[in-house]
Structure formats: C-alpha cells, structure tokens
C-alpha cells in the first residue's frame, strides 16, 4: 500500500509538471500581451512595462523563472487583478465554487441514487417512466437554462430564494440546484441500469428464496453492489463540479473560480492561467487517487499494488 501510494504521488507530481510545462508554452503562443490598456500604449511604452514584469526575457528563461517560483511556493501576481497574489485569488475564489460543487454533488448523487433505485425496482411502471423522464431532462437541459428558469420562477416570481448574490446559505440553493441536475441525472441512469442487472442475478433470487423482506434485499444486496461502480463516476464528477461553472457563477453572481479561469485566458493573465491550471490538475489527480483507494477498500476484489498484475 505504501509503495503504491508513493508511486502514485510520484506520478502525480510528474503529471503536474507536464501539465504546467505544456500550459506554459501553449499560453505563450497566444497573441497579445497581458496589459489591460494595451490598445492605448505605444510599442515603446509597452516594452518598458513588459520589462518591469520580466516578460521581455526569452520564453525558456521565463519558464525556468516560473517553475523556480513554484518551488519557492509562489504562483506569481495576477495581471487582471493588479498585483493580487494568484494564490490568494485562487484561495478566495475557490471556496464558493467548492461549496456549490460539493452541495450539488451530495444532492445530485443522493437523489440520483433514490431515483435510479426506484426506477429499477419499479421497472416498466409509471414510477420508472417518471424517473427516466427526469434523468433525460437533467442531461438534456443545459445548466444555464435551468439556472435562468430557477432564478426567474423561484427567485423573482415566488420570491422564495434570493435572485443572485453571495451573502449566506440561502444564496447557494438556486445555483446548487442548477448544478445538481446533471449529476442527478447521470447517477440515476447509472444506478438504474446497474440495479436492473443486479436484481435479476442469482444471489438476489437466493435472498428472495430465503424469504428476506423486499427492502432488505434491495438495500443490503442490490443497492450496495450497484454502488461500487458509482465510485468510478464520482471522482471525475466531483472534480468537474468543484472547479466551478462559469455560466452558473455568472448568472447567480457567485464569486467563484470558474469564470476567473476563462477570463484569465481571454486577457492573457499568464500567472492566473498557470496557477488555476495547476490547481485544477492537482485536484483532479488527488480525486482520482482517492477514488482508487476507496475502490480498494470497498471492493475486496481490487487490490492496490504497485505491480499492476
């Protein structure tokens, strides 16, 4: 186990290094400078300002300076938020995105499992059909459409929830719901398919023959076995949700990281692009590692070893 972990951590660092390198050079291929007032500066003014930021040096030198900075624990200063440390920017923007992502994840997965289980148990009844319709809608309706509808009906028309803003728990509900639809739909479809299989297997027949209650069978035997493959789904899903959604954050005026990342690319804010990319990659790697570890714990058939046999 320890050997396995060490090996995985080594790969994690290697992955991050490759991601950082590739991002750095791709980013430098983008035209333009990170200057905000670029349209009004003459070439000599631009050159003087760029020199202040060390952007006049050859790209390879900038690369080594940047990587060196990372080893010293610095992600640099943002350009779009003049002189704001990128680590502070990510730190303060990450919280809301992670909170929304986490909440959406919990709601989506819990209700998805219920919906999927109901669909599987009541296969081919009206309950199953409703569950299927909900999951198809959840996948087909883009989150921004849902966000706009939720904002208009539950925010403006009924006044139940705040329309937009970020001043407490009440403000997180609509964006959470908008984000939860897709994981809910995906979980429901996944669980339903898996449970339909499990429910027709021999050991379920045996449990039934033993005279176990219907709930007992579903809960102890069918559902728990169907949950194992879910773990595979949850890792990347969590990463996708927690890295923030630009559209949902914009619609509900959430101070999250999703939009910052997109904007930093548009305005050539190099340090922010790098910082957020590295952070996202690290998050994804760690979540995948966790998924694998959890897998090993809940499914005894899978053993974690460094040999991969």
């Amino acid at each position, binding site marked *: 186990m320890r050997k396995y972990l060490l090996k995985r951590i080594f790969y994690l660092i290697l992955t991050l290094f490759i991601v950082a390198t590739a991002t750095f050079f791709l980013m430098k291929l*983008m*035209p*333009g*400078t990170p*200057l*905000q*007032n*670029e*349209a*009004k*500066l*003459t*070439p*000599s*003014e631009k050159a*003087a*300002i760029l020199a*202040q*930021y060390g952007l006049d040096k050859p790209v390879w030198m900038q690369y080594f300076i940047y990587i060196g900075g990372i080893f010293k624990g610095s992600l640099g*200063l943002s350009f*779009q*938020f*003049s*002189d*704001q440390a990128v680590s*502070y*920017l990510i730190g*303060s923007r990450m919280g809301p995105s992670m909170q929304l992502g986490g909440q959406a994840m*919990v*709601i989506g997965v*819990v*209700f998805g499992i*219920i919906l999927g289980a109901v669909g599987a148990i009541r296969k081919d009844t009206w309950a199953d059909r409703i569950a299927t319709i909900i999951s198809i809608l959840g996948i087909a309706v883009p989150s921004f459409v849902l966000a*706009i509808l939720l*904002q*208009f009906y539950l*925010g*403006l028309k*009924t*006044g*139940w*929830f*705040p*329309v*937009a*803003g*970020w*001043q407490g*728990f*009440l403000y997180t*509900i609509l964006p959470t719901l908008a984000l939860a639809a897709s994981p809910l739909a995906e979980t429901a479809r996944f669980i339903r398919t898996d449970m339909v299989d499990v429910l027709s297997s021999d050991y379920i027949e045996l449990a039934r023959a033993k005279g176990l209650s219907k709930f007992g069978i579903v809960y102890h035997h069918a559902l728990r076995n169907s949950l194992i493959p879910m773990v595979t789904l949850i890792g990347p899903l969590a990463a996708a949700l927690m890295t923030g959604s630009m559209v949902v954050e*914009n*619609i*509900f*005026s*959430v*101070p999250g990281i999703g*939009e910052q990342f997109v904007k930093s690319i*548009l305005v*050539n804010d190099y340090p922010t692009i790098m910082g957020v990319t590295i952070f996202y990659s690290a998050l994804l790697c760690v979540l995948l590692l966790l998924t694998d570890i959890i897998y090993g714990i809940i499914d005894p058939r899978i053993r974690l070893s460094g040999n991969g046999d």
Partner: protein
Amino acid sequence: MNLKTAAKVTAVAGASLLFLAACGSKNSSSSSSSKNTATMAAQAELPTMDLSKSTDVWSSNMLNNTNEGLYRIGKNGSIKPGIAKDTKVTNGGKTYTFTLRKNAKWSNGDKVTAKDFVYGWQRTVNPKTASQYAYLYSGIENADQIVDGKKPVSSLGIKADGDYKLVVTLEKPIAYFDKLMGFVNFFPQNEKVAKNYGSKYGTTSKAMVYNGPYKMSGWTGTNLSWKLTKNNDYWDKKAVKMDTINYQVVKDNSTGLNLFNSGKIDDTVLSSQQVKNYKTNKNYKVRQTASTFYVEFNRADKDAKLAKAFKNKKIRQALSYAINRQQYVKSTLGDGSTVSKGYVSHNLAKNPETGADFTADAAVPEAVKYDQTKAKQLFKEGMKEIGETSLNIKLLSDDTEGAKKSTEFVQGAWEKLPGLKVTNQNVPFKTRLSRSQNGNFDTVISAWNADFTDPISFLSLFTSDNSYNNGKYDSAEYDELIKKAEGADANNKNARWTDMVNAEKQLMNDEGVIPIYQKSEAHLTRTSLKGIIWNTAGTNYNLKYMSVK
C-alpha cells in the same frame, strides 16, 4: 453500518435543507433604495483601488468617488474645484500654481497636502510602478524620460511649495491640462499609507485611504460586492447626501433585470433584447459613452491590389455610403447606441465660444450617409480608376456576440456592391489588437474611447506618425492641423478649436476611416435616484451629489 448511516444522514439533511430553504420568507418587491441608501450594479469586477494602476471603467468610477484630485469633473464635463482652491497659470501656459484648501483630510485623519500630489504623481510615472496610464503625463516636464527610465522620478515637473502650494511645470502648454486634473491617475496619494501597505496597497478596500466624498468598505480584492459610505473627513461633506451606496457585480443582464425587478438593485444595464421591452419604462435611461466604432482600411495591405483599392477615395466613400447605420443601430444593436455623426463622439466637447457640440461644428453629413445608388456608382468608378473588376476583402473584428453581428451587417451591406466579396474574421480581442497593430488585416472594425473630454483624445490617433494609426492614414494637412492644435494654438482656445474642427473635417472628407456608431449603455435607473452625474469620457460616474427622493 457506517455507509448506511452516512447515506441516511445525507439524504435527510439534503431533503430538509431544501424544504427549509423553500419556506424562506418572500421578498418584498419594492425598491431597495431607502432613505439615503441605494444599490448599484457593476458590470465587471473591481481589479484594483490603486490610483496609479487603475485602467478600467469600474476602478476609475470607484476611485473618482472615494478620492479627489485638484479638480472634480462635474456635469457635462465641467471643471469644478476639488482640493485646489485657486489656480494661477503663468509662463505662457507652462506653469500652473495651485493653492490647496487647508481643510482637506484623508480618512485616516492626515491632512491632504501638496506633498501627497508630488508623491502620487512620482509614483505613477515611476517605471517600477508600471502604470499603464503614465502616458497621460506626457508633456509634464521630464515625464517621458522618467517613464523610459532615463531620468530620476524626482525630476518630474511637480514641486510642493510648503504644504498648500503646488507648482507644476509643463514642457509645452497642454490645452486640456485642467481636464486631466480631474482624472484619477492625477489624484494625490498618501505616502505613509502606500508605503505601509507596500505591495498590498490598493488591493483591498482596507489597504487604501480616501480623501473623497465616500469611503469604501467590504472589498476583499476578489469578491463581488462592496460599499461606499459617506466620508465624514471629506472637506465638502455637507454636499454629500447619500449614507451608503452598495455595489453588486452583475455580469449577466438577465440577472440584473431580475434583481432590479425584485427591488434588490436600483440600476442595471439592459441588453438589446431587454431594451425592446423596457423602452417605455419610466426608469429607462440611455447613457452615452465617448466610444466610436469605425472601420479602418489597411493602406499598407500586403495584397497590393487591396492597398491600391484602399488608397482610392471613391472606393472608401462607396464602402461608407453602403452602410445603413440607422437600420444597424436600430435593429441590429438596439441598445440605445446612436449613429456616429463623425469620428469624434457626440457630447464630448463644446465650442468654447458658442457652446455648440464638436460634432455639429465639424459635421460632414455625406461621410456618414447611407446612399446605395451613390455607393454603387462610386464603387464602379473607383474600380475603373484602379483597373480592377473584383475585390476580395477580409473584415476583422472581435468574436463577441455584438461584434459578430456587426461584421455580418457590414458584410451584407458591402456585398451589395458589384464585384465585392467580403470574408468575416472574428477573433478574440487580444488577437484582433495584435493583428491590427502588426498590419495583418484588410479592414477592421475598431473602437476608440476618449480618455478625457477633449476631441484631441480621438484626433491624435490618426497623425501619420502615430503608432496606433493602424490603417496608415496619411494626410499632411491633417498632421499640420493636429500639430497646431497641440503646439502653436494650445493657448488659444478658439484657434485650437478651429484646428480640431478642420482636422475632423479633413479626416471625414477623405473618408480616412468609416465611423459607424457611438456606443451607449441602456439602463434602468430608479427615478427616485437623483443627482447622478454621468460623463461620456474619462470617469463616467460622479456620485458626489447623488440623493434618493
């Protein structure tokens, strides 16, 4: 089992949270503006509160209302006294002596003195600060050399003579110097505070000090809401009526409208779709900006055939006549923007003698007229003159929704001309800029917005040696007129005005660029909000005299 309990707890918790939240109280739909309090929407984040580093609209708006320079820009760009009580101009317009008021204070209790101006100005031109607006200092003694790192910052033409006298020396008279003094990059800065916070100065509302009508609080440097509260240390606090102005960043227009309709905010910007439904609303208000969108031709095009075509006046005129601007602003834009009356924007500057708008004095109606018959005729003649039968030109612009609509409209209009084929190129903003500057385009839809309320902020762009003259417009007469306006006639308001009027006429008669429209913002602003001063150029909002009735 753990899994079992965990699943139960989460399910119950999730369900009850939703239920509880759904029982929340219903919001009232009245306005959020109560006595002396209002909430405004900002359309973008606040990137900085550092006076030297502000380049964007929102930091400029916030700084202008929380700080004050020698002058404050009032209604219609008028110059109102700020920290300066009295001004003497001597030495042929090259020396300004400002007497400062003694009752001006910073929000930390310090007095505002001439040294604060010296420090602030020196900090902005210091190459280490890397201010992107330092170029506005050009013309103040030694500013250009200091920005280039060739002279020490102490050599800047600004000296404190005691605490309340400030002497500024210029290299040559600058006709719009008083207007610059109302621009945030020329405001004083408190050295003690700036040094105390070091690199954190201006990165949060706390790491800043204020000498203007309001103080800012609640801005963490990255969040989306903050507050302006009345500054009791402000010298003219009697004039300030508002206790609190809340700001909420709202980037999505439909969110803005929902917030406005639910009474949470008192001002929002409308999209063109929303304008259609709210045009007759009593809260509807159009705010014009000094921003002109125009087509530039690349006279140095790599394609020799196109370079020849763009040098032909008849072809340029034909391309202008072909565009139905009225229809464009009405049906395609629909956001309150107006047809350009010329290159220099409307409501920017007034004739010093008659008070007439610059665009009225310098009008060349034919240059912005729609006439398809004439367009076809001129195009045919122009093509004959250059000996071609067909042209294939690319039209470059941004890749935003609005820019795409613009290129499609212009493409549609131009392709009605016989033998002309147009290909649209919609690219990201930074790409468009670098391609424009490198001359890698045929035609481009560009925008220019004025830094201060003087036509020269537009006109200086098209002198033949200007690095931002991307299309290489080259007219000796034009260059001469601009030179006179910035040099020989700088001290003679009327002669300078005539120079600029003639320069604009020259540019328009040449059809040097094709002006299309002037950008406006359509707002819903509650009628209860009074006294909001909006200027088209420089800093838009002056909220010193704002009130709620």
